[in-house]
C-alpha cells in the first residue's frame, strides 16, 4: 500500500469552555490517511471521534470551542491554520461530510435538488441547467428511483434510507478526494444500514475517494475499513489494519468492545459482557490512562502515567502499559 499521503493529523487537541468548566474533548490524537484509504474511527459516544473530524473541517464553533494545539496537513496545507475563505474552497469540493441524522441534516424548507445544485454551482461553476442535469445523474448513481421527478421534493417526503442516499450524492457531487462520514448509518434500520454500506463500497470502487468512517458499531467496520483507530476519552488507544484489529486486538478497551458484541455462536444463558464503570468525565483534565478506572487489567502505573502509542506489531500501535496476553507490564 504505497499510496500517497493525503491527510496527516498531528497532536490535535480540542477543548470547549463552558459555564460548567472546560471540556477536554480531544486530547492529542495523531494519525495519517493515504489516498483511497478507508479509516474507521471507533469508540463510544463522547469519546471525541466526531469532535476530532469537525475540528479538522473547521466546523467547531469557536467560542466556546478552541483548537488548543495540533495540525491537520492536507496536501501540504494545514487546515487548522487556514483562513475561512480558503477553507470554504476545500469544504464540499475536496473534503466532504456525511452526517448521522439525514432528517435533521438536510434543510427542511429547501428541495433536495436545490441542496445539491448549490454545491455544483458554487464549486464547479456550473450553470443552473447543467447543474440540474448533473444532479439527476448523481441521484440516479446513488440509487434513488425516479430522480428527475423527485428533484423538487423536500426531505420530509423521503424515507430515512433515501435521505441518506441524497446526503451521499450531495457530498460526492463535486468529486472530493476525502469523504468523512460521521456515523452515517446509526440512525437507520439495520437492513437499510446494510444497503447504505453496500452503496458506499460500490461508490468507492468507482470513484476511489479516501474515507474516514466514524462509528461505534464494530460490525460495520469489518467489511468497510482498511485501517481502524479506536478512541477513548479523546485519546487514540489502538490503531491497526482492520484484520489485525479483529484477529489480534491488543488494548484492553478494544478487547472489551469486541467481547461486548453479542454473538450468535455463544452459549445460551451466558450473560452479555459489558464494560464496568461509567464513561469518563471530560470536565477533568486528563491524568494517567483514561481507561484506568474501568480496566480489568489495571496496574498502578496506569493511574499516574498516560501511555503513548507504541508499536506492538507491524502497523499496529497501542497505548497501554501492559501486555494483554500475559497481563505483565511491557
Amino acid at each position, binding site marked *: 500500500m504505497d499510496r500517497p499521503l493525503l491527510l496527516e493529523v498531528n497532536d490535535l487537541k480540542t477543548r470547549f469552555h463552558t459555564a460548567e468548566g472546560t471540556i477536554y474533548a480531544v486530547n492529542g490524537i495523531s494519525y495519517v490517511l493515504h489516498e483511497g484509504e478507508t479509516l474507521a474511527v471507533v469508540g463510544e459516544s463522547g469519546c471525541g471521534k466526531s469532535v476530532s473530524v469537525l475540528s479538522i473541517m473547521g*466546523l467547531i464553533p469557536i467560542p466556546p470551542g478552541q483548537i488548543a494545539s495540533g495540525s491537520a496537513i492536507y496536501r501540504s496545507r494545514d487546515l487548522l491554520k487556514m483562513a475561512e475563505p480558503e477553507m*470554504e474552497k476545500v469544504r*464540499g469540493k475536496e473534503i466532504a*461530510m456525511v*452526517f448521522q441524522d439525514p432528517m435533521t441534516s438536510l*434543510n427542511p424548507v*429547501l428541495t433536495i435538488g436545490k441542496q445539491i445544485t448549490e*454545491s455544483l454551482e458554487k*464549486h464547479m461553476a456550473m450553470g443552473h441547467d447543467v447543474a440540474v442535469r448533473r444532479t439527476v445523474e448523481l441521484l440516479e448513481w446513488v440509487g434513488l428511483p425516479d430522480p428527475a421527478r423527485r428533484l423538487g421534493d*423536500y426531505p420530509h417526503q423521503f424515507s430515512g434510507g433515501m435521505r441518506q442516499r441524497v446526503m451521499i450524492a450531495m457530498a460526492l457531487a463535486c468529486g472530493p478526494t476525502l469523504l468523512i462520514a460521521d456515523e452515517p448509518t446509526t440512525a437507520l434500520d439495520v437492513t437499510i444500514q446494510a444497503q447504505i454500506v453496500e452503496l458506499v463500497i460500490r461508490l468507492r470502487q468507482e470513484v476511489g475517494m479516501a474515507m474516514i468512517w466514524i462509528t461505534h458499531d464494530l460490525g460495520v467496520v469489518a467489511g468497510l475499513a482498511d485501517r481502524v483507530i479506536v478512541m477513548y476519552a479523546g485519546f487514540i488507544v489502538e490503531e491497526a489494519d482492520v484484520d489485525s484489529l479483529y484477529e489480534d486486538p491488543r488494548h484492553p478497551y478494544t478487547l472489551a468492545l469486541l467481547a461486548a458484541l453479542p454473538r450468535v455462536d455463544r452459549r445460551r444463558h451466558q450473560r452479555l459482557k459489558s464494560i464496568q464503570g461509567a464513561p469518563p468525565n471530560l470536565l477533568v483534565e486528563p491524568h494517567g490512562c483514561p481507561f484506568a478506572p474501568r480496566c480489568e487489567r489495571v496496574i498502578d502505573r496506569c493511574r499516574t502515567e498516560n501511555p503513548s502509542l507504541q508499536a506492538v506489531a507491524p502497523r499496529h500501535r497501542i497505548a497501554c502499559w501492559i501486555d494483554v496476553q500475559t497481563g505483565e507490564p511491557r
Partner: protein
Amino acid sequence: MGRYIIRRLLQAIPLLFIISIVLFVLMQNIGDPLATMGGRRPTRKEDRERLTRQLGLDKPVYVQYLYWLIGNDWTKVDLDGDGVAETQGRRKGVLRLDFGTSLIEKRPALTLIGERLPNTLLLMGAYELVVVIGALAVGIYSAVRQYSLTDHAITALSFIFYSMPIFFIAFLSMQIFALDFRRWGLPYFPTVGMFEPETGKTAGQVAWHMILPVASLALISLAGYSRYMRGSMLEVLNQDYIRTAKSKGLGRRYVLLVHALKNASLPIVTIVGLDLPTLLGGAIVTERIFAWPGMGRLFLDHVQRVDTPVVMAILMLVSVAVIIFQLLTDITYAWLDPRIRYD
C-alpha cells in the same frame, strides 16, 4: 387547501354570531344614548319617547338584536306611540351591510367608518413595514453577533422599549422631537393631526405627521419581535442542516440568507399575522395622543357618547378583520413551510 379555507370560514360564522351577541348585550347597558342627543336643551318627554320608538329602543333586547341583524324593513314600526305599528321600517340589517345610522352624526355608521379607516390603515401599514424589516434586521444581527457587546446592548434596550407604555414613548418623543427641537432651532416634528391646515393634505405633510405616531407604536413591537427573531435565528443556526451547509463550503452570507433565514422567519409570519389585535389596540391610544383622525379615535369618541350603531360596527369590523388575518396567516405559513399540509 381549498377545503381547509372553506372549513375555516364556515367555522368563523358561528364565532362572529357569538361575538355579536355578547357585544350587543354589553352595549345595551353602557349608558343612555338619548342623554347626549339633545344638546344643551333637555329633551322634552314627547321627543324622548318618539326618539326611543324611532330607534327601536323600546323593544326587548332580542328584538333589537334581530332588527340589528336583519333589519326592520320587513315590518312596521309604531312611531306615534298609539300602540299601532304603521310606519315601514327602513333598516336593512347588518347581514345586508347596513350597520345603522350614527345616533350622533345622523349619517350611516359605515360612512363614518369609511372616512376614518384609511387614516388608520395608513398608520398600520407603515407600522407593519417598520416592524417587520426592523425586527428581521435587528434580530439577525443580534443572533450573528451573539454574546458581543452590541448584542447585550440591543437585548437590554429591547427589554426596556418592550416594557414601555405607549404614552411614555409618545410623550417623550413629542417632548424631544417636537418641543425641544423647536427650542433648539432644529427642524421639529408636528404633534397633532395628519397635516397642517394651511398647507393642505399633501403626501409630504401626511408622511411628516406620520413619523412620530408610527415610531412610537412601532418601537415597542420592534423591540419585542427582534428578540423573538433573534431567538428563532439562534435556534436555527444551531441546527444540523446549517452545519451541513457549512460543510459544503457555502459562504457565510449565503448560508445565513438562504439556509437560515427561510427557517427562522417562519415564526415571524405567525407573529405579524396575529399582531393585528395589538396593533388596533395601540392605535386607539396613539390616535388619541397625536390627534390622528383614525378609527381608534372614532371608537373612543363614540363609546363615550354611547353611539351603539357605530361602536357595534367598529367592533364587528375589527373581529372580522382579526379572523381573516388569522386565516391568512395560517395559509401563508402553510405556503412557506413545505412540511405543513392542511387537508
